[in-house]
């Protein structure tokens, strides 16, 4: 007897809970398409890939369900809530790389179309080029500080995964010390190698930016800094702080002075430098201490810039006070005579002004009235009536 009651209770519970489940599941559908972004990829690369759907609400992520892509790369999730506050994230793995994307249902729509582009990988760096390589040199009394910025471009359509866990390579001078990165997270993306540094992140098609810095000892007499290009480089720029240090190089052309902040730099540049080109920079001469020899112009400009907001406030106050001063000066003028006489004179003058204004206004009105009559906006009777009254008033004003 107990068994049927238990079954009945479960059934009842299911019936009560069913609408809630239906509401929770919703009617949203995600129609997905896996595509391979590499031109010569195998045709079946998009088939049979496991796609996982996650739901992100209020910062917490939970797995909703998984599915497998069909032979043409299509996949589909259904019974989803279309709430705009829910962010759907789907992930799939191909050749050891996890691809993911996020999306929400468009307002009022129950179908969400998503496209996931996967790519083939390559360990060849033949299609890796450097669009821009900046070398920035600053000097202290005992060292030269070097910052290097690279903008790489993977011009192929495969993800460059390198060999043995490292991808892009960077050379460092023999005497380089204190190698530093923007933050600890960036530092974790590099490993030290024999020739210098190597990147551990994969380089997808498109741009990848890398920035690091280091110092080399320099006593102000002479130093030859050897640098080299490991990849074909479109633009190579050297910026050396203009603090008295002589810079000579055969591979780069001097392009004049350039300003950066309050400092100026000697600018050297080269274009379309082939891979494995040796660059030699010969430095000589002691740097001036920036603090010891400030340029008069830059310190004046800096001081003025510092004081600019205060100057704006000052000008605003000056503007506000000036009318008071003008008023006081005007009142203090001797020709005003006795207060009573002055006041009377003002009244007479004002009355004169008022009469003049009235006369001008009446003349203008009469002219306007003539125009209105000519344009047919007034009938003759109204025109004569108004015109006569105005002319009479004009006469009165003249005799006032």
């Amino acid at each position, binding site marked *: 007897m107990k068994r049927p009651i238990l079954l009945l209770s479960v059934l009842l519970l299911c019936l009560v809970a069913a609408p809630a489940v239906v509401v929770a599941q919703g009617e949203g559908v995600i*129609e997905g*398409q896996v*595509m*391979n*972004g*590499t*031109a*010569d*990829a*195998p*045709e079946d690369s*998009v088939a049979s890939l496991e796609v996982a759907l996650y739901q992100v609400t209020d910062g917490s992520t939970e797995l909703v369900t998984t599915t497998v892509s069909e032979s043409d*790369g299509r996949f589909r999730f259904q019974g989803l809530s279309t709430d*705009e506050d829910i962010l759907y994230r789907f992930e799939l793995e191909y050749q050891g790389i996890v691809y993911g994307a996020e999306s929400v249902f*468009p*307002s*009022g729509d129950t*179908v969400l*179309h998503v*496209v996931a582009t996967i790519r083939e990988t390559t360990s060849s760096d033949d299609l890796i080029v450097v669009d*821009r390589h900046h070398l920035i040199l600053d000097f202290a009394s005992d060292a030269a500080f070097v910052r290097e*910025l690279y903008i790489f471009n993977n011009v192929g*359509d495969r993800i460059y995964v390198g060999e043995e866990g490292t991808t892009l390579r960077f050379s460092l001078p023999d005497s380089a010390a204190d190698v530093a990165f923007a933050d600890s997270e960036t530092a974790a993306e590099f490993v030290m190698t024999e020739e210098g540094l190597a990147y551990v992140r994969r380089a997808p098609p*498109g741009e990848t930016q890398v920035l690091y810095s280091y110092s080399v000892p320099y006593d102000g007499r002479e130093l030859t800094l050897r640098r080299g290009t490991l990849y074909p480089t479109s633009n190579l720029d050297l910026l050396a702080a203009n603090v008295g240090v002589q810079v000579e190089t055969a591979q780069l052309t001097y392009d004049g002075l350039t*300003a*950066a*902040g309050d400092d100026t730099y000697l600018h050297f540049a080269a274009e379309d430098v082939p891979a494995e080109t040796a660059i030699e920079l010969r430095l000589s001469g002691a740097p001036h201490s920036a603090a010891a020899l400030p340029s008069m112009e830059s310190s004046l*400009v800096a001081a*003025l*810039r510092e004081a*600019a907001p205060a*100057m*704006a406030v000052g*000008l*605003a106050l*000056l*503007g*506000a*006070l*000036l*009318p*008071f001063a*003008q*008023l006081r000066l*005007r009142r203090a003028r001797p020709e005003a005579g006795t207060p009573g006489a002055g006041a009377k004179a003002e009244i007479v003058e004002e009355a004169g002004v008022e009469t003049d204004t009235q006369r001008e*206004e009446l003349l*203008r*009105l009469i002219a*306007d*009235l003539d*125009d*209105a009559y000519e*344009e*047919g*906006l*007034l009938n003759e*009777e*109204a025109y004569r*009536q*108004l015109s006569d009254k105005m002319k009479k008033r004009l006469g009165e004003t003249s005799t006032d």
Partner: protein
Amino acid sequence: MSDLGFFTLSLALGTTTYSIVGLALGIRKGDEGLTAAGKRAIYASAVFLTLAVLALIYVLLARDFQVEYVASHTSSDLALPYTLSALWAGQEGSLLFWTWVLSVYGTALVLSGRRASQSLSSYSSLVVACVLAFFLVLVIFVNNPFQRLDFVPADGLGMNPLLQNPAMIWHPPVVYLGYVGFTVPFALTLAVLLSGRLNDPYVPLVRRWTLVSWLCLGVGTVLGAQWAYVELGWGGYWAWDPVENASLLPWLTSTALIHSLMMRRGRGALKVSHIVLVVATFALCIFGTFVTRSGMISSVHAFAVSPIGLYFLAFLIAVIVGSTVLTLRRRAGLKGEDGSESLVSRSTALWLTIVLLVAAMAAILLGTLFPLVSDLLNVALTTDYFNLSSALILGPLILLMGICPFTTWKGGDSRGLSRRLIAPLAGGLLMAALLLLLGLRDPLGVVAFSVCAFVTVGTLLQFYSGLRSSRRASGANLLSALVSMLRKQRSRYGGYVVHLGIVMITVGVVGSSAYKIEESITLDQGATHTVGGYTLRYEGFSYLPSVGKDVATATLAVYERDKQVKQVAVLRPEKQFFHSSQQPVSEVAIRSTLKEDLYLALTGWEDASQRIALEVIVSPLVVWIWIGGGVLLVGAVLALWPARRREAVEQGTGLAVDRLGASEDTLTGEGGQR
């Protein structure tokens, strides 16, 4: 150059504070010299602000990336027109642009004020100077476009790819011209209240300023809708986004204001309805900026969120409280509102128009602000709310647009009105019959298009009867009679042209929203797909690098089945990947005809097989929205340009009537419908 820009801004602040104190002191002490100097200081502010804008343009063109604004909104490969439009692409630049436009408007107000009374001119200049000072303080101390970085970046971050569209060169400045322009009617209204000259003619004073700002805001909004249509790639043009609503709200109240300015009782003096609508319009313009910049309500336009929103909120409160207090102080002297003994009269129709416009504004404002409380109430409003409420309110408004021109000021003659409406009604019914014959069964569509036909026939009849009387009066040929009619009654016929523009926009909105066909398809090379009478054949695909971006293009031949299948177009939807941005941008391909648009957006592709994914939309009549926007522009320009002579007549006769106490009935007006 950036230092010079900052310095000129500081000088502008100095001259503006001089203007405020000089005008306030001059008015209080009756010192005309000081008042005149205060007004002249506004010219100086405009000159300094012009120099500041030129300085910002210079640093943008020189690509001085040490200036933070230049580095944040441009890059060395940005095209020249977009480098110039970067002036208003970011918050700091757009605030400077706003302030400069305000100073130019202020100068024009002072210059035009020479004909108005001294005290009105002084008070209105004072109000403009106060608003100018508020914006200058923001530009100098909170959002300075000339802020410098401590280093020089090798290149700028570039402009948001979505903003790199021709519509974005014109849309923001035109909308700003509208927003800022409403400062002038606001200043003039406060000036009337402050000076106590409540019986002076108010309508001629503010009419043209209101029309100019209304026109700019309307055209700017249509330009914005077109940008969304061609750039966002979802096939729509209006998403009821808070910022879109922010430009629509003041446009609705200003439309109500224009209709309230047509009321003729009180001989054009200031009335409470004018104050309410002017202050509401100005406050809604400030509210729009608050919405964009505060991030209080999430919006796709809220590119930059900053504490500047709080300053705008404070300013908004000051505007509303200040205007309310001032109105209450002067309430005894204000003219009564128009009313009519008859229910069927022009006054009643205009009142109904104003009420409906304000109701539409209130409904949209409620929906815009609703997200603030939706979490508390656990209820969310969808776009359906906006679509339904605006259709329910604006539908009757369109109908009213067809009836109003046939009413008379005197009213009461409902039989006469019914007789005059027979032809428009016949036009509406004919349209309904035609649509039913063509197989359209959707009641909403039939009613909407029939109402549009009713209004169109009614408006064209107004032109016809005007032309007939003009020919009878002058005996001239058709063309000279038309010119003479338009020249004599520009505002009336300009208004009718605007009405025709609104009808066209309505037709476009109804057609494109109720009968849109939308499909997401994937196509293999050489495959075809048929949608809404068109057959698409996928011809080829390319992925090519371009300046600053890579472009993926699909080529599709479009065939249309008329009597026989023929190729009508080749469309090339693109997806662009800007090097400076992670965000891909759709460059949609559209085949536009008066009947419908075929809209293709490339959503994805597979390099190996060159299979493409497309969003295909057939959007009927959508082109009429843009044509309607153009007609609206023509109508408003007709009403405005060159209206000097006519306005002088109105003002002159209005003044004469007031001063000399002549009976208004002696004026013939314009066929009894002045």
